[in-house]
């Protein structure tokens, strides 16, 4: 696992420090704390396609399967004892209640014997019915606090989701935009993991006041790896 070095090769994971803890940002969009064997994933938005279809937009019905498949590979790679799903796990309550059988079965398999925690999000405030795992508004572990929506102002050790951070660079007259982990070393905001989830630029207003700007870095999710970009280079 490569860290920080301005390497020529591309890394698939980068190690960062959040409030003194070492964590691995994976290019697929999950965060892993090796010391605790804890994996965090945020904004799965399962059944988003179905939610749109109910309103007359027939998006491809494959997003849930795709999201679960990617989730399965990250779980297989890190094999975490603890998993925290950081809210908006389902696109809406209806989706949580009516997920087609095969998906539900697959999800239950993935949860398996792990210590699985569902954090409540704004899309799915109610806990997923009948699924294994514990439900909570937030979880505090050893100086870290896991919640869906970032708290206002400074919050050392906070790992949050909700905002779907994305970052943009401009090089050689060309603009590249990707989902990203955003962190100033004190707080970290997770990228959205769901297959049909867009992103919001970390420089936009909803992020105002969340980071010490001079220490902000974006870990952008590429197609081949993850890229650490200094805040000063973001556009």
């Amino acid at each position: 696992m490569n860290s920080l070095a301005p390497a020529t090769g591309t890394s698939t994971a980068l190690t960062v420090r959040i409030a003194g803890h070492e964590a691995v940002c994976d290019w697929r969009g999950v965060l892993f704390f090796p010391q605790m064997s804890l994996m965090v994933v945020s904004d799965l938005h399962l059944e988003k396609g179905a939610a749109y279809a109910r309103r007359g937009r027939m998006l491809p019905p494959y997003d849930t399967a795709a999201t679960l498949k990617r989730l399965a590979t990250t779980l297989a790679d890190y094999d975490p004892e603890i998993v925290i799903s950081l809210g908006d796990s389902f696109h809406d309550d209806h989706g949580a209640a009516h997920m087609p059988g095969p998906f539900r079965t697959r999800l239950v398999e993935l949860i398996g014997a792990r210590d699985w925690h569902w954090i409540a999000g704004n899309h799915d405030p109610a806990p997923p019915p009948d699924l294994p795992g514990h439900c909570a508004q937030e979880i505090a572990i050893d100086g870290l606090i896991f919640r869906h929506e970032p708290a206002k102002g400074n919050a050392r050790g906070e790992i949050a989701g909700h905002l779907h951070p994305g970052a943009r660079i401009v090089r050689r007259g060309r603009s590249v935009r990707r989902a990203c982990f955003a962190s100033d070393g004190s707080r970290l905001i997770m990228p959205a993991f769901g297959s049909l989830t867009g992103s919001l630029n970390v420089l936009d207003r909803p992020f105002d006041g969340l980071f010490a700007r001079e220490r902000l870095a974006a870990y952008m999710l590429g197609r081949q790896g993850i890229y650490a970009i200094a805040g000063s280079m973001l556009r």
Partner: protein
Amino acid sequence: MEHRTHPIDGIAAPFLPAPFSAWFATRGWQPRAHQLELLARTQAGRSALLIAPTGAGKTLAGFLPTLTDLAARPKRKPGAARRGVHTLYISPLKALAVDIQRNLNMPVAEMELPVTMETRTGDTPTHKRQRQKHAPPDILLTTPEQLALLIASPDADRFFSDLRFVVFDELHSLVISKRGHLLSLALARLRRMRPELQTIGLSATVAEPDELRRWLVPQDTARALSDIVTVSGGAKPHITILETEERVPWAGHSALYAIPKVYEAIRAHRTTLLFVNTRSQAELLFRELWRANDDNLPIALHHGSLDVGQRRKVEKAMETNSLRAIVATSTLDLGIDWGDVDLVVHVGAPKGASRLAQRIGRSNHRMDEPSRAILVPANRFEVMECRAALEANYLGAQDTPPLVEGALDVLAQHVLGSACAAPFDADVLYGEVASAAPYAALDRTTFDRIVDFVATGGYALKTYERYARIRKTKDGLWRIANPRIAQQYRLNVGTIVESPMLNIRMVRRGRGNASRGGPVLGKVEEYFLETLTHGDTFLFSGRVLRFEGIRENECLVSAGGGEDAKVPYYAGGKFPLSTYLASEVRAMLADPKRWKALPEQVAEWLSIQRDKSILPRREDLLVETFPRGERFYMVLYPFEGRLAHQTLGMLLTRRLERAGAHPLGFVANDYAIAVWGLNDMAAMLKDGRLSLAALMDEDMLGDDLEAWIADSWLLKRTFRNCALISGLVEKRHPGQEKTGRQVTVSADLIYDVLRAHEPDHILMQATWADAAQGLLDVRRLGEMLSRIRGRIVHKSLSRISPLAVPIMLEIGKEAVAGDANEALLGEASRLSGEELMQEALEA
């Protein structure tokens, strides 16, 4: 002027009511032969196509059948039911509808005809539209989008109950796009409501008039044709190519060298219309002309991104002849005849002979006097192209593109619209759709897949049945599931998909929102703004603007200065060189006798090429190889236009990669492609490790094309358009942008999911068909590959050839190609550096 009379088989002489002959007489006019012939044919119940050059009185000809019919109509008795619309006039441009109304008002008023006439466009206020529904005018002048909305409303049948004629203006330009497909479907619907309906098409000269004749009539019987009336001739335009002692540049499109001469020409004429091919060129030319404008002549700018108020002001000024020159793009292309234009200057090559004829037609609208035009080539290849176009215009050669089959995303939109109007029977709707010329070859299976797509998305995985938008009920009819669907349809109707644009608003220098509230100058593409950072300057609306930032859906700018302002680029607007002109340029290149018609410096350049390398024959493909610096170059000269060349470049580099030539990149323009790599391609060709015949084999359009294209951003852009038009995703409406990106679903994401899970989905097929015709120009590439089989001429050189200079100058100017995004990310990441990162990570 010559009027070609077709034997009027069994058609009676036209009946021109007394007020009309009297009116012609008082004006000292004679009705023209083609006006009478068209009248006779329509009075015999036929539909007809009128092909005539500008200035031939096309508009009056097109409306005579309507006006004479309305004049003879008995007065409505008090208390009788209101009559519906009698004639629909459809034009591609809103401005044209307004203009036609003004032109028709005169005869209608002077003959005191009992005729009401109104426009209905996207700008028409809601209350007026409501009123038009209840009290329709006799003649409604409108656009394809508005017609689609009208036929999708539940009272369409009543509204069109008295419809007799549909007049299509500028039909040649309507039929070539998806708008034309949507319009053909609307026409098929109108015909089903009113089987006796007659159509009249007005068109400039086209290569294949039969395609338009088919378009006008139902294709129930194989290849049915409308009647045709052709007016040929008109005075030959007087066209010259700008003569200059200045050096004509090797490459580039700005033609700045010619500014003094162009300015001189403006001074020597009453009103000059300057055409350019892109909005960026318009901005540049406008700025340079004002720099040269010592006499302070009134020179204006007109292009599609400018604020509507600003454009209307310019149009008004044209009308009153208070301008000396107008710099314009294609927004002024079509038959709008304002003002007393006595010179057309075309800056940059026209790219197609037909387009040139159309634009030159802007000057001097009296058909019997010659138009005057000056062509200004921007570089040396364009000199040849202008020369070829000029000869083509004299020859009357036409190179309008062949029509393509009706697009499936448009069909999907129409199917939903049909259900919004009234429950439909699939068999009946299929029959109706297949009667429209663009859909005549549509098979039933594909049609049913589209209906399924409209209903539930058409996925193999049938999970959305319960959410269906349209449903087949017990009576066998398809109905919309709820009224919200119709509402959604109305908001998304139309086929014009613009790239996301932001308003440009002037504010005072400096950040902060206190300075909000300056004027809106127009719109610019989001793609361009994404490449700007605070403080950058760019050229817009003829001024230098300083980029202050983006707030919600507006781009804030302040007055800027400085010389090195960027010029916004716009998606689209760049036409590739037409097949016909390309072939003419190749012919000219091959024939030294024809070089005499070229400027000295260009002829000299070609003769040096002949000495140092080879000049290919007309049907040959010249391939040159040479080393330069640390790299080895291969330059090909197919002359098939930028789009086909880009596709060929992509495929060629893939093949060179496989052959071990280690290509590093390529660049393409309208005339040539240059590929460069680390290995000596000339040596590889010599010892047989590489074969040009194999490289350029037609089979490259098979697997290679599919493998490359699936990943290409080109296909994603095309998919986005198909997704919008077919109603899979919603159009963005002004004010919605605020809701934030994270809640909208981008078409790119949908594409990725669909490609991974259902690559054969009907929308993917539609996307592929679209891209092959449009952005990739696969048809043309295929024709080229078959043309050059066995005719590839390779010349191995020790240094760059004269002919290669222009394309070599393009290297480095082009933005990084295709899928370089990862490389850019890697670069930015390295630049971020250890130090910065360390700082960022210290907690």
